[in-house]
């Protein structure tokens, strides 16, 4: 029993779980809705910046991006680059004004901007859709990782992860979630820093290994035992180092950039984080901190993918690692390299990092969706005025409901592609909330009807273009259809608003609130 516990992967995972329980216990006192949903707006830029980065850098980024670079080369690196753009745009156009506005949820912004319960309802629908599409692949990833490293069943993985989330977010609220997210981010980054340090120390310099990979053309030794046809895997270094695998032409690449870069601005769990700072200045610094962390993280992810490829092509890793790299899929690349570079202890830290990534991202989605259910639906449509205690209780009940709903969703998507679902979440966000927030903050002419039409049309068009792409002509079939859905979202808001022309009578006062320096500290 003790020897099992001292095995690094169990040791680090239990250490992570113990820390989560301790932080959650310390943050359990949530006496008001402000405490539960926005952590009492008390987080400084360092903590919140770490939490934003923790929220943004999911398991798909921690494990998947290095894996993608390992397998498809330059296109994997370009995909990583596309993820790095959005936070910067968010920092420039949305972070400060959103904090000055200072509400509880994303739907609050839409409802208060137009003084409309209808707009709130539609916004809730979109929040739940985006969060659902984002939560499903995270749960899928969690179950796969549990299965890979601890041999558990898929169903157990889903139930376990949802149970942890119910405890973690339900008890700790935004306070516990933020502190846990910040800690979890540094576990992941710590694992990456150690891996990068070990790789450089081992002489795997970037220019040298890239050169070795691009010059390698032929069969990879010692892989035949793990392939279906019993032959060694063929590798072409020149093809690996050039583009054309992920996107077949220039237009698809532009579509990918538009979808992923603008999608970040509309992700509810990221937007929500800017309400938790004490001031707009802190919100902007948090965003800057998150961008710095994310940039370093993405840089390391690509480098580690290259390191993995170089080690793999040498073909002299131990058979178990070679098997994992051939048959384990993209998610096995980072753990495999960790084992090669730092043995079982580094592998243990990486496994804990993978869980940290899943918990961190899922908790953000749980808190954003619980706000939509408890604050936007229950409290806003309740006939009587709820006390602070009742609002917190409603938030906790919403977490429980979401745990069950997301759990069912996770069980349904067992065979789905993680990348497909994540792309769907980004596309829906880019085509719905991004136009609403950009126009809402910077254009007085947006009307309630324009906003509702934009949200609905953006949601429907983006879902259609992803789920029913096969019904469209080949020229309109995109992996990330941002090039079509995002302009449709923006144009719908603009055209309907121009036709409607009925703007809120206090729109000037709204603009003063979100832009004026007087509302710097709310």
């Amino acid at each position, binding site marked *: 029993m003790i020897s099992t516990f001292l095995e690094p992967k169990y040791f680090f995972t239990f250490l992570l779980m113990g820390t989560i329980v301790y932080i959650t216990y310390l943050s359990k006192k949530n006496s008001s809705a402000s405490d539960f949903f926005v952590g009492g707006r008390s987080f400084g830029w360092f903590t919140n910046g770490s939490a934003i980065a923790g929220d943004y850098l999911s398991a798909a980024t921690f494990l998947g991006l290095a894996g993608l670079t390992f397998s498809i080369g330059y296109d994997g690196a370009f995909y990583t*680059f596309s993820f790095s753009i959005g*936070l910067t745009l968010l920092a420039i156009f949305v972070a400060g004004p959103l904090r000055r506005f200072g509400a509880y949820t994303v739907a609050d912004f839409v409802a208060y901007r137009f003084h409309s319960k209808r707009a709130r309802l539609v916004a809730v629908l979109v929040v739940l859709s985006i969060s659902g599409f984002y939560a499903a692949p995270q749960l899928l990833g969690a179950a796969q990782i549990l299965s890979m490293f601890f041999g558990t069943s898929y169903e157990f993985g889903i139930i376990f992860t949802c149970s942890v989330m119910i405890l973690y977010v339900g008890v700790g609220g935004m306070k516990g979630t933020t502190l846990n997210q910040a800690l979890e981010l540094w576990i992941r980054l710590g694992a990456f820093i150690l891996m990068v340090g070990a790789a450089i120390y081992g002489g795997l310099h970037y220019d*040298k290994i890239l050169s070795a990979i691009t010059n390698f053309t032929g069969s990879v030794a010692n892989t035949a035992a793990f392939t279906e046809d019993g032959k060694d895997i063929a590798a072409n270094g020149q093809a690996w180092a050039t583009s054309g695998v992920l996107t077949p032409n*220039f237009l698809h690449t532009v579509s990918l950039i538009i979808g992923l870069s603008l999608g970040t601005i509309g992700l509810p769990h990221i937007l929500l984080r800017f309400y938790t700072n004490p001031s707009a200045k802190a919100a902007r610094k948090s965003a800057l901190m998150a961008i710095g962390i994310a940039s370093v993280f993405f840089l390391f992810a690509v480098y580690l993918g290259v390191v993995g490829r170089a080690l793999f092509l040498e073909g002299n890793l131990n058979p178990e690692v070679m098997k994992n790299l051939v048959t384990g899929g993209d998610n096995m690349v980072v753990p495999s390299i960790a084992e090669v570079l730092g043995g079982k202890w580094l592998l243990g830290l990486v496994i804990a990092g993978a869980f940290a990534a899943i918990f961190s991202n899922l908790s953000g989605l749980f808190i954003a969706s619980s706000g939509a259910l408890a604050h936007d639906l229950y409290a806003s449509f309740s006939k009587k005025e709820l006390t602070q205690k009742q609002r917190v209780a409603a938030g906790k009940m919403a977490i429980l409901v979401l745990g069950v709903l997301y759990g069912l969703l996770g069980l349904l998507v067992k065979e789905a592609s993680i990348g497909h679902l994540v792309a769907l979440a980004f596309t829906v966000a880019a085509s719905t909330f991004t136009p609403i927030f950009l126009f809402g903050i910077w254009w007085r002419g947006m009307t309630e009807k324009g906003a509702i039409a934009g949200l609905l049309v953006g949601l429907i068009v983006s879902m259609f273009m992803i789920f029913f792409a096969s019904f469209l002509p080949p020229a309109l079939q995109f992996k990330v259809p941002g090039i079509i859905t995002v302009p449709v979202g923006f144009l719908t808001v603009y055209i309907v608003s121009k036709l409607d022309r009925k703007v809120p009578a206090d729109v000037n006062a709204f603009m003063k609130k979100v832009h004026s320096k007087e509302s710097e500290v709310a």
Partner: protein
Amino acid sequence: MNKEYEMTDQPLGTMDADSLPPLDKETRHIMKSELRTGIGLSTIYYVFIFFIPIINWYLKDFAFSQFWGGMSVTWFLTTIVGMVMAFLIAYIHTKRYEKRLALYDAASHLEEPANNRGGTSA
């Protein structure tokens, strides 16, 4: 008609967009200056971002020529310069914003004594 802003989802009335009075001078100035900085920086950023797929698809020889060891020009731009740019653009924006905030604070402090001149505080 300049109504006070109230955070509520109860209907508070609408007006025709054409009859909207202009924004007050300070808000207009802040929005204009923030938007100018934001659009300027994001234009620079997007020119850089789209430069990469343009060279990848239309100037392949240049994009995939060796730059440093085995690293091609486009690999360097995408994985190293791209990450630095994301931070740099946000950093410049934050610094400019802090500068504007400091100027605003200084202007507010200068106005205070002028407002209090000749009177006593309540």
